[in-house]
């Protein structure tokens, strides 16, 4: 109480200071609202720009794969399929690898120093720009995997996912480069969640004779699950929105194919590829595609945040 009283007197004494205080506070308030304004602005602008295309095609846009500026016909199915298939498959590979690595660096298999070095190294990799990863993918990864892709097609060609002859850049390469990008995210979030599991739970399990992996599977992983899930969702959002590396390696073809051994498209690579040169109703269709991408990543992101909120109060 006394503190407030002193403050109060001062305010009365210096009218200017009181005004500065109010101005300062309101400026900060306005600046913090910028986030909301920008977010709302993005949603509104993208929505209104896509309006023309939206009113022309409606939801049919999402399920047709014609993309023909000459005939002025647009449908984003190829790109939407590409976005979903690359992000989900890359996540499918990343989750076990990332969580496995996270377990490796949270258990005591190797000395702490080694674990910390591995941990910070993985985190550093998250800082490498995706355009550089794309460059690497073009010149190193693609030649490296060429023979393997031929093998995949020869032996598993009966599966629709591998049904086309591999020719240079394709969706599977995009998936693999996405794995490289997502690994640091999943690994470091999984590691943090595992580290946050209270020690006493591990003690409890060991104290009644559980083995190391019994403890990990039955006690530690379940307790860390919500955190790991949130990390996975964040990674999913990243995968869906990732542009450069994917654009450089996916082959950018709108010809639809179920196969990931054929060139493909994602929404973001289509935007990167066509936005600069588009005109007429193509622009509006691109905005429509951008709107779809934004909704997808918003949903994933909001779900991730909800998950974090819901489960963070457990202990």
């Amino acid at each position, binding site marked *: 109480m006394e503190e407030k009283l002193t403050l109060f007197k001062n305010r009365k004494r210096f009218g200017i200071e009181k005004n500065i205080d109010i101005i300062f506070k309101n400026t900060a308030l306005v600046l913090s609202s910028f986030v909301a304004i920008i977010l709302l602005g993005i949603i509104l602008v993208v929505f209104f720009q896509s309006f023309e295309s939206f009113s022309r095609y409606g939801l049919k846009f999402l399920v047709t794969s014609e993309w023909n500026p000459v005939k002025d016909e647009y449908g984003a199915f190829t790109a939407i399929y590409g976005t979903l298939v690359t992000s989900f498959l890359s996540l499918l590979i990343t989750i076990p690898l990332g969580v496995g690595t996270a377990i490796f660096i949270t258990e*005591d298999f190797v000395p*702490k120093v080694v674990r910390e070095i591995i941990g910070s190294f993985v985190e550093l990799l998250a800082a490498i720009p995706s355009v550089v990863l794309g460059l690497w993918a073009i010149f190193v990864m693609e030649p490296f995997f060429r023979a393997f892709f031929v093998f995949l097609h020869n032996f598993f060609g009966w599966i629709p996912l591998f049904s086309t002859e591999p020719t240079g850049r394709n969706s599977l390469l995009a998936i693999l480069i996405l794995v490289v990008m997502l690994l640091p995210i999943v690994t470091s979030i999984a590691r943090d969640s595992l580290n946050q599991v*209270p020690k*006493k*739970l*591990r*003690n*409890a*399990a*060991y*104290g*009644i*004779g*559980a*083995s*190391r992996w*019994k403890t990990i599977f*039955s*006690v530690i992983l*379940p*307790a860390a699950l919500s955190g790991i899930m949130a990390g996975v969702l964040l990674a999913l959002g990243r995968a869906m929105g990732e542009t450069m590396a994917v654009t450089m390696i996916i082959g950018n073809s709108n010809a639809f194919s179920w196969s990931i051994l054929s060139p493909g498209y994602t929404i973001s690579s289509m935007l990167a590829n066509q936005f600069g040169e588009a005109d007429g109703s193509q622009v509006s269709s691109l905005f429509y595609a951008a709107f779809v991408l934004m909704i997808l990543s918003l949903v994933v992101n909001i779900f991730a945040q909800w998950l974090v909120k819901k489960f963070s109060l*457990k*202990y």
Partner: protein
Amino acid sequence: MIKTNKKTPKNIILSLENVSISYGTFEAVRNVFCNFKKGDITSLIGPSGCGKSTVLRSLNRMNDLIPNCSLKGTVLFDGTNIYDKRVDPVEVRRRIGMVFQQPNPFPKSIYENIAFGARINGFVGDMDELVESSLRKAALWDECKDKLNDSGYSLSGGQQQRLCIARTIAIEPEIILMDEPCSALDPISTLKIEETMHELKKNYTIIIVTHNMQQALRVSDMTAFFNAIEYEDGDGGKVGYLAEVNTTKKIFNSPKEKTTQEYISGKFG
């Protein structure tokens, strides 16, 4: 194969022979010799920081979980040095269970908290029956028989601790180690847990760390008094040692050591 030490009488279930335990370069306890009798409750008492928990954890190799904690000497259990390279610590912990200072139920239902340990120990009998009997032995059955599917965390602190005891009993260990199991609890819960211990004494050997001397007096047959002193060769830090071990009566009525006398009369601690 290590033969049973000839000097060890038959009813000794666990014995420490010249045990010293260090954390990195810091030696926490030094040269402990101590025998624990089968079917007894033994209290470990002493000022805080003298290494009671350290010694207790060494009895079922929980210290393995602490990086750079190392032990010299032997801990004989059932004729085997449990620090022998060939020994599987998981096996040791199945036969020597532990209850910790802070109640630490799993984030699972009450029922699952007990069934989990039993299951990993290969229990094939009637699980419902085991859960009930374990909860009864831990004096918790009446309080939670109607909410076995509630989370273990829905219980009060004292109940959680009794759940942890029940969980340990359910794996039917030969020895139960307890590290200040009542320090986080209110007096009524404490009394309940002491009753539980009296009950358990029939079937188990119990070794309990306590800072409460009344509790040691109430529950234990034997008492080991640990103390810490500065050694001249040390780096200034205090090193724990076992000052005196005897029947609880003798320790409290006619201790041999002067420090024991001073400690139990409350001069330090």
